[in-house]
């Protein structure tokens, strides 16, 4: 150990050895997980067509609103096998109106994913903030947040969401949110977040409590770290893994809830479509037009599966247990 020789004047730039951060390692592990990579591409694909829905539809020459009477028979049902699939309507047409299902699916992905993403984002932000605060500050603040969590969990959320849809959208409209779907979507996202954060907060709180016991948190405290440093530098970076997993699992969940609301009659307004609206509509045609029943369902399943597989992949990649070997 000939270390103390080095004095300030003699310091020189050291060559730095390429190193892999835990994130980078996780990324490499993730890249090796072929199934998860495929799943991510599927997710990206869905996100892509949702973002560029107008362009995609234009390129395909389809429109989600155009009525096509010719694709319907006299019963108002698709005029042809498999929901009147044709070169013009690749996935067939909607019974009753003859609108192109593919186009509606593409535009629907927009709304469904928007609801999913924003709800997830809000829930996560609220949940993470409150969870960390509760776990980190403990004591009275924790008690208040925990009791609030208990209270939120005691409510039959779906029932309340349905019951409050109309009065609250009206309230939102009177507050200046554009009438119609903007107000409805705002409401849906708000209530989903209002009830959803609890689950995130519980997990984050648990993680934070566990992290607090780790000595590096104490070390930061011993260096005089403030709350800001503690939360953002020490705690948050270590709870990304569970947060990402929650996100990947809850996003498709919110897509499903949105569709349930549509099914229960408090969802989106016409003529816009979400996958939920389509699912809700399609179940009536299980006999007359099974194709219609399956198309949005399969789309949702593919998306959900992709999200879950991607989430599992991320979790496996981030799994701290693979960071060190516990062999005697």
């Amino acid at each position, binding site marked *: 150990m000939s270390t103390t020789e080095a004095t300030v004047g003699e310091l020189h730039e050291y060559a730095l050895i390429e190193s892999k951060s835990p994130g980078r390692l996780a990324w490499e*592990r993730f890249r*090796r997980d072929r199934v998860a990579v495929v799943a991510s591409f599927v997710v990206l694909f869905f996100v892509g067509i949702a973002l560029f829905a107008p362009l995609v539809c234009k390129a395909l020459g389809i429109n989600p609103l155009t009525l096509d009477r010719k694709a319907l028979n006299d019963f108002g049902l698709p005029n042809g096998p498999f929901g009147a699939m044709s070169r013009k309507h690749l996935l067939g047409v909607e019974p009753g109106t003859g609108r192109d299902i593919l186009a509606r699916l593409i535009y629907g992905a927009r709304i469904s994913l928007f609801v999913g993403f924003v709800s997830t984002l809000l829930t996560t932000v609220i949940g993470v903030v409150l969870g960390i605060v509760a776990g980190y500050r403990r004591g009275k603040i924790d008690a208040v947040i925990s009791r609030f969590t208990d209270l939120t969990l005691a409510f039959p959320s779906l029932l309340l969401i349905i019951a409050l849809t109309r009065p609250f959208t009206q309230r939102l409209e009177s507050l200046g949110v554009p009438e119609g779907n903007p107000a409805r979507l705002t409401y849906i996202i708000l209530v989903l977040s209002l009830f959803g954060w609890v689950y995130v907060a519980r997990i984050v709180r648990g993680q934070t409590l566990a992290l607090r016991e780790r000595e590096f948190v104490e070390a930061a405290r011993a260096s005089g770290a403030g709350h800001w440093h503690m939360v953002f530098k020490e705690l948050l970076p270590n709870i990304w893994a569970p947060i990402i997993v929650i996100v990947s699992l809850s996003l498709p969940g919110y897509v499903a809830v949105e569709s349930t609301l549509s099914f229960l009659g408090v969802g989106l307004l016409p003529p816009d479509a979400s996958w939920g609206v389509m699912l809700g509509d399609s179940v009536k045609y299980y006999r007359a037009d099974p194709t219609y029943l399956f198309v949005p369902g399969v789309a949702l399943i593919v998306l959900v599966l992709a999200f879950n597989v991607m989430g599992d992949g991320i979790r496996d990649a981030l799994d701290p247990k*693979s960071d060190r*070997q516990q*062999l*005697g």
Partner: protein
Amino acid sequence: MNNVRLLSVENLNVEFSTSDGVVHAVNDVSFSVHSGKTLGIVGESGSGKSVTASSILKLNTGITASTSGSILFNGKNILGVDDKAIRAIRGSEIAMIFQDPLSALNPYYTIGSQIIEAYKVHHKGVKKKEARKIALEMLHRVGIPNPEARIDEYPHQFSGGMRQRIVIATALINSPKLLIADEPTTALDVTVQAQILDLMKDIQRENGMAIILITHDLGVVAETCDDVAVMYGGRIVEKASVQELFVTPTHPYSFGLLGAVRSLDNSARGELQTIAGSPPSLLNLPSGCSFLPRCSYADASRQQCASFVPPLQNVLPTNSLSACHLRAEALNVLKIKEPS
């Protein structure tokens, strides 16, 4: 005490495949244990000692583990027997205790039920009352005060030392021929450790069972064992009787280890003897002697040391075996460097 060779492990290899590669946890390990004797397996973390111990009871059952070699217990190859046969051996012929006495006990059941269960699984048809009586006796034997009152308590109601006593009681209830103790005192305070080691010795003296004691603590080895195997990088690098090891270590690693411990034990202020560097990762073992990177004696023979793994050989006119290329010179070198 009879000197029957109870267990002999031959050329044991254990590998785990992980996402980062194959971990060679145990490499070509051979040793044997005699009734009434205690074999110490010493090594630092990651040396493969716990995996070796688990292999004896076929506890490394994960799909990622693969085991080869043979483990002969009373002449029967344990690695070759089916599940049912190994179950008959577990807990009745060979018992095992673990490092952390709290986590070794099922927190959801009373200690009594866990001991009784261990008894009844090998004594089918025994009445509950009788089993309970035997359990009480055993608890009494291991020094649980007032066992009648405490037998229906849960593990978390006991102190660490008491828990380890309970674990021992559970392990010994069927009077096994061999006890594998995997770092039984590491989690305990020294005063409690002394109690537990005493207890184990007492019991061994009474029933003549063999013990494999896995530890990283040379002091524990010195106090408890008859023979020692020193493990490093998944291999046994030295095998000797306790006397031999502590008086005339024949492997540079053993020597270094002993030196570090002794200098801690004895010296006042001043530089401690150390072994430079860190233990190897079992993931990427060096091709030759795995101790080479830390070995300060291998100057002349470096070429040889780096190219192949030294076999375990007799280097002195004693019974000790050492896995070192230095062999003849080694002793001299070690002696020269031995501190005054």
